């Protein structure tokens, strides 16, 4: 199911921080991981992913470095900073709280 852009917008930071909390990744890997983990429900567009990553980097939540990966190609790897790790946990708690509240409203008669 294609998810509305506006709905996805608020959750991009949470998703990116969560994916990066599992280990450092470069842009293409992040896209693939999001698609696989969500069983194809999420399909980040490249045009959304990179500005979002740069925004997180500017906020000091992720850091990046160019290095040669296992495939022998140079890629820009992103990883969480300690501030980013805390933010990931905080966003996750807020998200659980929000979805719980939304579900309660949607399920109420």
């Amino acid at each position, binding site marked *: 199911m294609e998810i509305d852009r506006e709905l996805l917008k608020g959750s991009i930071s949470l998703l990116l921080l969560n994916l990066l909390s599992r280990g450092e990744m*470069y*842009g*293409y890997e992040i896209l693939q991981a999001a698609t696989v983990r969500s069983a194809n429900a999420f399909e980040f*567009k*490249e*045009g*959304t992913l*990179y*500005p979002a990553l*740069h*925004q997180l980097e*500017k906020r000091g939540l992720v850091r990046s470095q160019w290095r040669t990966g296992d495939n022998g*190609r*140079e*890629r*820009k790897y992103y990883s969480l900073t300690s501030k980013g790790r805390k933010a990931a946990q905080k966003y996750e708690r807020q998200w659980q709280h929000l979805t719980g509240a939304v579900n309660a409203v949607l399920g109420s008669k």
Partner: protein
Amino acid sequence: MTRAERLIDEIMAAARIPSERRRQEVRRELRAHVEDFVGSCRQSGRSEEDIERLLLDRFGDPQQVAEQFACVYHGERAVLHFGWFLISTVVVSLIISAAALSMQAGMMFGLGASVLAALGSRHAITEALDIAATVATYVGLVSLGRFFGYPLAVLAVVTAGLFALFAATGLPTQFIVFGFLNGALLRGIQVAVRRRMLQFGAALACLGALGILFFHPSSSAVVVTAASWLMMGTAYHLMTHVASRMDRVLAAKL
């Protein structure tokens, strides 16, 4: 050039990312992504045409992507542009002050008056301040207008800051107002008059008339006042060229 390259070019051209080094890095990152995407599609046996179509679809509208990048770097860009505005103002003010004051010194010398006394007078200092305010207004209207959505609001903040600074140091604030009007007039002439020679003529005529109107010289001093203001007009016209040149350099760099 492939369509993917064109797409990246289109994004980068409109993304307004400050600093060449960062632009190169973003371009490199997007290229690496395209390389991975194309490699993975080829492995799964897709045709080249199919891959290109998919890639364009995945990136989406390049203008929208560029706008998202522009939003990320908005703050940084604003700080850089404002810094450039201040530097341009100081540099152009110094150049024009030096030019105007040396022309006046030449005139004093020609009239047989004391050059040193004229240059060291309070009048020379206030004139330099007037030039600074004029340049700040002119450069502000040109460069801030290009980079900020609200150039007049930014100029108002700068002017208020100058007023506060002048008031605190006891310098005459009326020269800021006069400089502000001067700068706006020069920019107005540049926008309204297309031909360079006519611009020059209009700047000279307006400033010569302003000198006589504002300072009400006695009949014997009318010629000297008008001549002095014509020189100022020449210097200001020179300023519009120096400032426009700096603005073009700035626009290319940022």
